Structure formats: C-alpha cells, structure tokens
C-alpha cells in the first residue's frame, strides 16, 4: 500500500464519525417529517398517544415518555451523584493502594455488566423490595431510577476518580502541612482542582441515564400514563421505542422517529457541553 493511499484511507475513516452523526440526524429528521407537520412543537407537550381505529392516523404526543425519561434520570442522578463522589473519595484518598486497586476493579466490573442484566436483576430482586418498603406495584419510576443509579455510579465514580487523581501530590501535601484534615484537603484543594472533570463526569453520566434502554425497560412499567406518585409506572423514550417502534405504522412510526430525534438531539447537546466546557481541550 502506498503512503498516499494509506493516508487517504485513514482520512476517510476519520470522517466516518462525522458522516454517521449527520446521517443519523438527517434520517431521523426525514422520517419524523410527517409527525412534525402534523403536530409541530406541541408534540413535546401533548399527553395523548392514540392511534385511529383504522391504524392510519391518530394523535400522538411525546409528553409522557419525555416526562418519564426526565424523572427517571433525575431520580438516578440524585442517588448516584453523592454515592459516586463518595466512592471516588474513598478510592483516591482513604483506601490503601491495595484496597483501592481491588475496589477499582470491582467498580469497573460493575460498569462492564450489560444493562439488560441490571434490568432483569432489578425486576426480580429489587422491584419486590421497593414494593414492600415504599409501596406501589414494584415496577415504576422509583425502581427504574434506583437501578439506573446503580448502573451509572461506576461510570461516574471512575471518571471522577481519574480527575481527582490528577491533583498534584505536592499540592495536597502543602495543605496537610498547614494542618488541614483530609476532608479539608478534599474540599479545598482536590475538588476545586478537579472541578472540570467532576462536573464533566456528572454530565456524561446524565447523558447515559437519559439514553439507557434495557435497564429501564424492565422496570419502569411501560405504561402510557403520567405518574402521580414516585412509585407509579410510566414510560420513557427509549423504552417506548424498544417496545413499540417495530409494530408502529405510518404516522405513529413517524412520531416514534420524532421522539428518537428529540432524544438524540438532547444527548448530543448534553455530551457536547460536557466535552467542550468541562473537559476542556483534551487533545495533547
């Protein structure tokens, strides 16, 4: 292979991500046209999702899955963020190197378990516990949120740990040398120093929680209704797509593409924000 050919091929491969992103956006946008023309921006705020009897038309609004996605994500973030910070602090500042290594491996294995396993485990082992302690049907927003939290904790904790580890040793030592306690060193030196990476990790985890399908599909209840209590079943965009996309027809199908587009754009914005603002220009 000549040098020029090699270079050109590598360049083409590199542009692939760009074309994929544009391609996904273009395809979703095109297929969502019917629903966009029919419902416009009100789609986002309309609770009704009903096909006509002849299956050719109907009224479709994305409000319920959008709310379900947001609420389950919020619950997950509220639970996961403090726990992930605690784990990162434990790994970087409390545990001895040996224990820290062991726990790190465990946390990373937890992150490697496929999401469908979390969903299934949650359905059979965790949902009954939620039902007994908090009430409700077992499946619902709360259960989905908690299991989602368990899923994103390892991810958040390992990125936070990595950014906390970048704090120069001598900076920590000089705070200790002034009589600071460990917590004060963490709060006043490490956290401010690693701020960008920590916020970035929270936002990336948020993006992941928003788009998670399988763990939530088992647990949220998959019911097209707004939740009134935290234990109520509802649905989310990925779950609705997972369960109903393939069977949908015409306008309903187009509404599904519309939802997929919303999800895609929102995660694109969130992840880009994390990249550009918080991780900074990482390219060395």
């Amino acid at each position, binding site marked *: 292979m000549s040098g020029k050919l090699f270079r050109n091929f590598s360049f083409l491969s590199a542009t692939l991500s760009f074309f994929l992103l544009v391609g996904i956006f273009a395809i979703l946008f095109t297929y969502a046209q019917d629903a966009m023309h029919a419902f416009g921006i009100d789609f986002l705020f309309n609770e009704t999702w009903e096909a006509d009897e002849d299956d050719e038309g109907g009224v479709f609004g994305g409000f319920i899955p959008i709310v379900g996605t947001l609420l389950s994500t919020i619950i997950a973030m509220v639970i996961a963020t403090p726990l992930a910070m605690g784990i990162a602090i434990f790994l970087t500042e409390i545990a*001895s190197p040996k224990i820290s290594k062991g726990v790190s491996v465990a946390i990373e294995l937890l992150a490697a378990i496929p999401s469908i396993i979390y969903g299934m485990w949650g359905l059979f082992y965790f949902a009954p516990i939620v039902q007994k302690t908090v009430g409700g049907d077992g499946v619902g927003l709360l259960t989905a949120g908690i299991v989602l939290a368990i899923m994103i904790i390892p991810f958040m904790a390992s990125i936070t740990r990595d950014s906390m580890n970048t704090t*120069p040793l*001598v*900076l*920590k*030592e*000089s*705070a*200790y*040398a*002034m*009589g*600071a*306690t460990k917590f*004060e060193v963490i709060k*006043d*030196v490490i956290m*401010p*120093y690693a701020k960008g990476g920590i916020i970035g990790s929270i936002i990336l985890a948020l993006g992941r929680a928003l788009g998670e399908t399988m763990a939530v599909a088992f647990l949220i209840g998959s019911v097209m209704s707004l939740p009134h209590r935290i234990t109520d079943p509802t649905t989310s965009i990925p779950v609705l797509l997972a369960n109903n996309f393939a069977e949908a027809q015409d306008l309903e199908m187009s509404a599904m593409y519309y939802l997929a587009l919303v999800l895609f754009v929102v995660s694109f914005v969130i992840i880009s924000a994390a990249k550009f603002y918080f991780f900074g220009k990482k390219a060395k």
Partner: protein
Amino acid sequence: MAESIVMDVRDFSFTYPGVEKPSLKKINLPIKENKITAMIGPSGCGKSTLLRAMNRIHDLYPGNTYEGEINLYKANGEKENILKIKKENDFIRLRQEVGMIFQKPTPFPMSIFDNVAYGLRLAGIKNKTELQDRVETALKGAAIWNETKDRLNESALGMSGGQQRRLCIARAVALKPRVLLFDEPTSALDPISTGAIEELIAEIKDEVSVVIVTHNMQQASRLSDYTAFMYLGELIEYDDTEKIFLNPGEKLTEDYITGRFG
C-alpha cells in the same frame, strides 16, 4: 554559643514501607532556634526524607517505621517527642507549629487572599479584621504585599513562579510556626528570584527557626548558620557553616564541597 535548641533529632532511623534497609540511620541533629540550618548532600542521601520526618508529612502514606526521637521544644521549655504522635488532632497541631515549603510552588486553586488566610481559617480564626491584618502582615513579611495588594481577590494561579513561591512562604509564615522546613525552595528559579527568596529566608529567621534542604552549596554557604552534610542516609558532619565549608572535619565532606563527587 548558648543558643537554645528548638528541635532535636536523636538516634533517628527511618524506613520506608516495603524496604528492608533504613533510608536514614541513627541521625543526630540539633536545630537551633532562630538560626538557619542547611542540609546538603548528593541526591538520595536522605536529606529530604529527614526534612519530611520533621513534621511527619511522611505519615500521609502509611507503613513507615520510625526509630529514635525527634523532640520539639515548646516556648515554655517542655519537650515533646513528635514521633509519638498518633491522633489526628496532634498531627494538625504539629503541622501548624512546624510548617513546610515545598520544592514546587503550590498555590491552592483559590484567590491570593484565601491562600494566605487558608491556614489561619483552619486554625480557627474567623474574625475578619484579624484575618485581614494577619494576611497583610504575612504578605509584607514575604515581600509581595506591594505586588499583590490590588489583586488580593484574583486567583493565585495567575502569579509568576517566583511570586507563587513567595506566596507559599507567606502562607506558611502567617501561621506563625516555630520551625519552617524548606525543601529546595529555589530549584529551577532564575537568579533574581532566587536572590529575593534567599533574602526573605534570611529575614524571617528572626521570627522562626529555619531548616533548608538544598543541593546548591553556594546557597547553603551564603544563607545558613549551621550545615549538616549527609551521605547515603547518614549524617557525616554537622557544624558551623563556616567551619564545614572552610575547614571540614571529614574527608567525605571535603570531597563533596569541593565538587569531587555528587
């Protein structure tokens, strides 16, 4: 020579975790009050290890073995063996009494004012006017008050290397420690900034006893009152700086200061 002693290292041996041989062997070294004591020696001789034992900063990483004594004499004449310290509370007190300046400047990611006030706040000072007074005094003492008085609320990370070092000295001085440990305070610094830092160290010895680790022999001879020469974890010779540099008692010391090795 009736100077009083502020710290006294006796038969002190130190072993890092997982290592069999001690890194410091039976060191005996007095630190005289309001004097500058320099520790010199080739890389790996243990001078930094000894310095880091004197405020137990080693203990951030568990598993070290200490033998012997390091006594700290209080103002009222009582002595305390700092190697006996176990409680976090006592570590904090020790580090407020025995401050440390590191090889690299270490401004915290906060404003200039907050950097200097940080230790004071840790020590429990909350009164605003007292904080302001002591920060000002410390910055004046470190000779950067004029450069910083109009930008106290700006981030300390924007200062030049030399300024950052003086800020760190101000930060340590603000706590009014009895002893200040300097680990290579002018490494990788230009001659003018080095001169400024040396002048500063010479000035603060009226307030605080200074121990300085340096690989720069001219610096040791210019600056210090006493010099300790270390080699391979042992203290080879300790005496008046003048004596060490003009008329060393040991062959090894002479070889080192005349540049025949290291």
